[in-house]
């Protein structure tokens, strides 16, 4: 089992279920049927919860609105920017996602006062993209893990340093923990629906972003399982991960001013010409008439060649049959003509 359960700072955190919420919520069938007849299950599996990334956080730190037990029916939602009672290493401040929240709110996905209700509903919130995932071990093939770890153990012989090491090390190496395929699937959940995006006011090009990405070399490689090709986050966000902006925003990683830097993560010799290349190419080349005609011509050429050549071959075969040549095996060859010399047997 490679689940990481005791991080270094667990020592400073209090028991996660201070208010004993699990007393009731550990029961498997706790829940209710709402006015629409939909069944809600409010069970929290304790063993599973203990293995998730938020396991050290008290229920109340997130569900702040519950102040007494038994509690009233819940009307509020959790704010991911709450500060919890965890103290991160090297600091006495309480931990919070406020920093991410600020970046996120300023990004293309942040809700603004001008947004229509429909737009607000269409934009993702934190929990749309994040599900309190289970901790899983990430293998660090490319780092000399054992040696580096031994360095830490010079001063931290305690077991917890392994988790601290891994916590840091995989973030040094990779931009995201999720596989590129998972990221594409996540963004595609909304951006694939080009009709809905058009209704929300996206440009035609932006509305077909997923389709065109899937048509690009990056998309194809990712779909085939590549770990090296660019996913949406590689290009649309810096390592802050949530700073996704429209391209005319000067902060956007895809803004003309920054795009060379973005591509340089993987393409070393990025220059002025290079950044003009379409990475969301139009699938049917309808943007440029010349390329469109060329594509049409090549397709016709393909069919034309096949039909004429196979035709010629069949025609030829038919024509040559006149001489009594057959498509049967005879002495290791199909050279069989009725008036032919007997052939010496070959061993």
């Amino acid at each position, binding site marked *: 089992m490679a689940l990481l359960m005791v991080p270094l700072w667990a020592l400073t955190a209090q028991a996660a279920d201070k208010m004993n919420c699990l007393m009731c919520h550990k029961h498997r069938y706790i829940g209710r049927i709402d006015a629409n007849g939909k069944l809600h299950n409010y069970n929290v599996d304790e063993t599973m919860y203990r293995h998730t990334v938020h396991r050290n956080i008290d229920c109340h730190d997130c569900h702040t609105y519950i102040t007494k037990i038994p509690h009233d029916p819940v009307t509020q939602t959790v704010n991911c920017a709450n500060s919890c009672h965890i103290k991160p290493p090297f600091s006495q401040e309480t931990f919070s996602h406020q920093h991410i929240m600020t970046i996120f709110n300023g990004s293309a996905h942040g809700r603004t006062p001008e947004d229509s209700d429909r737009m607000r509903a269409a934009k993702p919130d934190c929990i749309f993209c994040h599900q309190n995932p289970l901790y899983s071990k990430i293998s660090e093939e490319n780092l000399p893990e054992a040696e580096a770890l031994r360095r830490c153990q010079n001063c931290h012989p305690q077991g917890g340093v392994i988790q601290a090491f891994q916590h840091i090390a995989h973030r040094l190496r990779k931009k995201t923990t999720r596989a590129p395929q998972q990221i594409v699937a996540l963004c595609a959940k909304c951006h694939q629906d080009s009709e809905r995006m058009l209704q929300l006011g996206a440009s035609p090009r932006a509305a077909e972003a997923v389709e065109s990405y899937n048509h690009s070399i990056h998309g*194809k490689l990712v779909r085939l399982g*590549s770990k090296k090709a660019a996913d949406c986050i590689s290009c649309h966000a810096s390592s802050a991960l949530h700073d996704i902006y429209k391209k005319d925003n000067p902060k956007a990683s895809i803004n003309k001013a920054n795009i060379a830097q973005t591509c340089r993560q993987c393409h070393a010799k990025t220059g002025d010409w290079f950044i003009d290349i379409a990475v969301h190419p139009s699938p049917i080349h309808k943007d440029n008439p*010349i390329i469109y005609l060329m594509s049409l011509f090549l397709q016709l050429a393909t069919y034309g060649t096949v039909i004429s050549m196979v035709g*010629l071959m069949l025609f*030829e075969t038919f024509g040559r049959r006149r001489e009594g040549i057959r498509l049967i095996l005879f002495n290791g060859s*199909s050279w069989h003509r009725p008036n032919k010399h007997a052939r010496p047997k070959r061993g």
Partner: protein
Amino acid sequence: MEQSLDTGTPKPAPTLDRSMGEDGYYTFVDGVGHIPRDIYKHVQSDPRGDLPRYSIHIVIQHLLIFITFILLAATGLPIFFSDLFWAKHLIDLFGGIDIARWVHRICAFIMMFTSIYHVVTVVGGTIVKLLRHEFDYKRTQIPRLKDLQDFFHDIKYFLGIEPFRPKMEKFMYKQKLHYMAVFYGSFVLMTAGSALLFPDIVAKSIPGLIGKVLPHWVVGNDSYSAFFQDLVRLMHADEAVLALIVLAFWHWMNVHFVPGRFPLQWAFLTGRITREHQIEEHFLEYLNNLREIPEEREYMRDLLKELSLAPREQPASDTILASELSRIH
């Protein structure tokens, strides 16, 4: 068949007569005799090949191209058709796409190397032949007007209008066309492939050059580099699919599956062509063989004698000849 009957007039020719018109049923070769055009129906042939056709270099080059082409197609097609169910399975055979990409590159480099090797052999061979005064452009891939005439002649033959197939050189019209197609195709695939492999480096040079040649309306809203890259993506993929289809549906069929060549033409491994095939489709090259290989001359002379086709005798017609044959054997 009937038309051939009265064409059987042996023309006394002093030496190897290559100027005979299409109606020349007999070709006279000094020291061999009058060879009837359809002698290939009566010769013995080893399926593994009787007469030299390709040098060892060409055989090696063909093998290299053959292997790399299959690997390139197997690693490239799944990328082109990445949304189809088999794509991932095919890629997984190579151990994942990140490895398959390397296989594709390495094969591409081997193929480019082979192309250079080929050009070197061809140019080198030509120089050697020129120095020895043996060079004959008719025995090369260089297209001639005669190829077009041969093509129409062949069509007529298949339709039953002409009695015999045209007398063709070492490379017939089909092969020359195919050779040119391979030349053009590899050029496109190699340039486009380099632009896909090194987009950042290529984008620095070629689009700038294009910008000097093409007016801007051609590229529309795009910049020259975007236009060039789009073009290159299209060309690389479509040209590769075209090449694969031509090879699978035409080249392989034509070479191995048609009657007379089925189940396998060994020429690509042995570098030798069967006597029947040589005489049927490359008659003029066969005459060269007769001139160059004494054993072949002997064989043909004996065969003609055996068939009582010695120059003095004039068989009344081909049909009688055939029936005679079945009586003798």
